């Protein structure tokens, strides 16, 4: 059920949607984390996953977890601080249903990846920690680059 005041033509509506799509795309590009910072964040996250999967009671990989976590959190803080200096505050929490769903799916993916990486590593698969670290780093880099606003849907492609 909807309420439309269709006082515009199809051509005008189409042109409006196209201009909105363009501005959303341009804004998303400007919201992206700089590549170097993306690299630092992804690598530190991947190292953290690797270190966690490799941690046993008789090794020092927990130190790797701590260092990676500190680097990752500092990188995030730097991103928020520099964005604020530039006049943009990135979203920290989801503001719509689609953002919430997207965030939950990403959280579930990373939780599963981290859990499975450690489980496989503990079961004796020597390359599991390397694979888990690499996969989580690549996926995080991809997400930060392609979905900087935290939503998989653009406003002009709504179907919420």
């Amino acid at each position, binding site marked *: *059920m*909807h309420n*439309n*005041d*269709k006082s515009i033509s199809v051509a005008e509506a189409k042109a*409006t*949607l196209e201009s909105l799509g363009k501005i959303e795309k341009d804004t998303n590009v400007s*919201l992206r984390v700089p590549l170097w910072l993306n690299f630092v964040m992804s690598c530190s996250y991947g190292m953290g996953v690797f270190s966690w999967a490799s941690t046993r009671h008789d090794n020092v990989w927990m130190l790797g977890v701590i260092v990676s976590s500190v680097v990752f959190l500092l990188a995030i803080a730097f991103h928020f601080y520099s964005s604020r200096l530039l006049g943009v505050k*990135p979203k920290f929490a989801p*503001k719509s249903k689609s953002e919430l769903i997207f965030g939950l799916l990403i959280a579930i993916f990373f939780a599963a990846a981290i859990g499975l990486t450690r489980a496989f590593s503990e079961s004796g698969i020597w390359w599991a920690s390397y694979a888990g670290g690499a996969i989580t780093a690549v996926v995080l880099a991809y997400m930060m680059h392609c979905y900087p606003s935290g939503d998989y849907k653009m406003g002009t492609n709504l179907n919420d």
Partner: protein
Amino acid sequence: MIEAKFDPLIHGQNRLQICAILTLTAEIEFKVLREKLEVSDSVLSKHLKSLEEAHYVRLSKRTDMGRQRTWLSLSADGRKAYSGHVKALQEIVGNL
């Protein structure tokens, strides 16, 4: 489910663009928005005033890092209105 609803208040190009940009951020500074839209201070202020009166946009003036800055954000009503309007446009075009 978002209800498609054409909103004449936000249909103007600049106002829709304002909503589109604000949807993607938590807050944005007035000057940054002005630069993105390539309009003058007075034009942007006029649009923002209309949107603020409709409770679609929130303006917050605060001293940040030693200087006065005006921060803009889209309210929940504004998000709903923008989403509904875009959906209405898509229905007109026949995308839905």
